[in-house]
């Protein structure tokens, strides 16, 4: 079976606008889903869940969210860490206030709360643009982290100032707390990621997505053809913050279990997720996955090779990682601003025409 679209004629507009127009891609997508849902949960252990899979799934959600804002709507934000913190502290307050509630509901509500906060901090985007806005979002980052650190109500007056997740269930299975199995963590995050990825795809292929991209590509022209910048920008902030809030909630509740805001949700987190989006590909759903996978795997790989194989000091490996990530960011922006997703697309373009490139 060759990688072809020839002969696969589309007879309806709904066929033509589907997510994977090429049959081979569609097959690949179903196989991936089958492995992700059918195989991995059976074989996953604690190391793989904690080192690779759970962080990947959660970061992919955050990267999707940030990509909607930066890649699709063109509004650069450096406040991701702060918004993840909103999700984390919301889910903590909800879980401790309503212990019996299914965790999924808590997580979604946390996303909704973050969306509100995101809209609030997105308001300046109506007046200011570009890196002025980027710097303005830093205000959200620093203010939110300070708020959660200094107001004891948020961490339920715990002596350490940390928040610790209570045990929580979903359909009778533990998904948070000490008794959670690796596969439960994995599946819980996977289900949420898949749902949100479908939502992101639907939003970006339709009217809302076109409004965002119009604002991104030329805001004045967008306004003249009838896009209301207020609703377009704020809806991007809302949807993006919802995703990031959900990611923050899962990061705390499922992955970390206990968190301290200045460490877990610092500005470094904002940059990490921005880097995922840049390396993966601005304005690409697939890119958000690729970027998250890459930046989750890179440190694991460096640690295993440099520290494990060659016995280098850990801090040296960490510094090398900084250099590699920095160089990659610059390299991608110079060579391929659309990131790994574009490289993948180009490769597929070649493959589609192979073996007759003309």
């Amino acid at each position, binding site marked *: 079976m060759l990688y072809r679209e020839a002969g696969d004629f589309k007879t309806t507009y*709904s066929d033509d606008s589907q997510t994977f127009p090429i049959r081979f891609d569609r097959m690949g997508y179903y196989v991936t889903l089958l492995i992700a849902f059918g195989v991995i949960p059976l074989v996953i252990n604690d190391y793989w869940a904690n080192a690779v899979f759970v962080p990947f799934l959660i970061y992919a959600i955050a990267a999707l969210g940030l990509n909607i804002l930066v890649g699709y709507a063109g509004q650069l934000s450096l406040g991701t860490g702060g918004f993840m913190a909103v999700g984390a502290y919301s889910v903590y307050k909800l879980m401790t206030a309503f212990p019996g509630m299914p965790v999924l509901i808590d997580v979604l509500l946390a996303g909704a709360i973050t969306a509100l906060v995101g809209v609030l901090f997105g308001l300046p985007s109506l007046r200011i643009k570009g890196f002025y806005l980027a710097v303005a979002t830093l205000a959200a980052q620093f203010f939110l982290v300070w708020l959660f650190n200094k107001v004891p109500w948020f961490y339920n007056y715990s002596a350490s100032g940390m928040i610790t997740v209570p045990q929580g269930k979903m359909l009778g299975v533990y998904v948070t707390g000490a008794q959670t199995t690796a596969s439960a963590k994995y599946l819980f995050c996977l289900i949420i990621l898949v749902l949100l990825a479908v*939502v992101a795809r639907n939003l970006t292929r339709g009217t809302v997505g*076109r409004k965002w991209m*119009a604002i991104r590509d030329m805001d004045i022209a967008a*306004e*003249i*053809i009838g896009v*209301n910048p207020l609703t377009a920008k704020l809806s991007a902030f809302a949807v993006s913050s919802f995703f990031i809030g959900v990611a923050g909630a899962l990061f705390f509740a499922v992955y970390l279990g206990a968190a301290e805001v200045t460490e877990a949700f610092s500005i470094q987190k904002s940059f990490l997720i921005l880097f995922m989006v840049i390396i993966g590909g601005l304005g690409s759903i697939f890119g958000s996955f690729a970027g998250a996978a890459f930046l989750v795997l890179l440190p694991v790989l460096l640690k295993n090779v440099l520290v494990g194989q060659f016995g280098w000091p850990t801090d040296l490996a960490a510094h090398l990682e900084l250099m590699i990530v920095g160089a990659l960011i610059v390299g991608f922006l110079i060579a391929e601003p659309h990131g790994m997703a574009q490289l993948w697309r180009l490769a597929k373009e070649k493959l589609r025409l192979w073996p007759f490139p003309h």
Partner: protein
Amino acid sequence: MPVSHAEEGYVTADGRQIGGTLMEMKNITLRFGGVVAIKDISFDIRDGEIRAIIGPNGAGKSSMLNVISGFYVPTEGDVYFKKVKRGPMKPYEVARLGIARTFQNIALFDGMSVLDNIMTGRLTMIKSGLLSQALWYGSAAREEYAHREKVERIIDFLEIQNIRKTPVGRLPYGLKKRVELARALAAEPKLLLLDEPMAGMNVEEKEDMSRFILDLNDEFGTTICLIEHDMGVVMDLSDRVVVMDYGRKIGDGTPDEVRNNQDVIDAYLGVAHD
């Protein structure tokens, strides 16, 4: 064929019926700080006609178009659309009144495909909300495909079927101009504003564009207001012409009347071909 100012309109030489006043500019003045871009200009645009605004460089044509499109608010004077006075409006609110435009320096969305660009022209008509679109269920999908059908007709009309899925950034200049026209048409405007639609085109592209403009006025009855540098094209295309110079109106009438107007000859035609 004298221009009638009666409400019922007039009949053109080629037999098209032109209706009553669609848009009226009354004593428009526009200042930027100390600079006067437009000085006390009045004219009207009638339903179904092709109206041109011409003038030498710096005459204030683009500023005038920006006033009509609502991007600039005039310092003095009033704008009436369908006999209703139009107060200061946001550009996107003007779009919802049924006024669409193209730009002199093409303003397409470079990161999107041709199809997506044209689909943005229909944004003002979409009713389904965020949630419905997020789930791609029910009205959202139905609406999308209904609008896609309308857009495909425009794509056929402008003969750009083969570049439907191409990113706009990769297209040559002439095609970009055509896509921009398609996007404006997708909005099914009452009034279509064209800002130098033929600028920078070769003869063949100009002919194509003239044909499209005449066809769409003929087939869809769209009222068109265009500003243009190329005198020949304008005289062939338009029903009535406003001539501007240094921010003032120096002539207004049919192409023939304008051609014979001494002020116009002095100010514009004399220098245009030197």
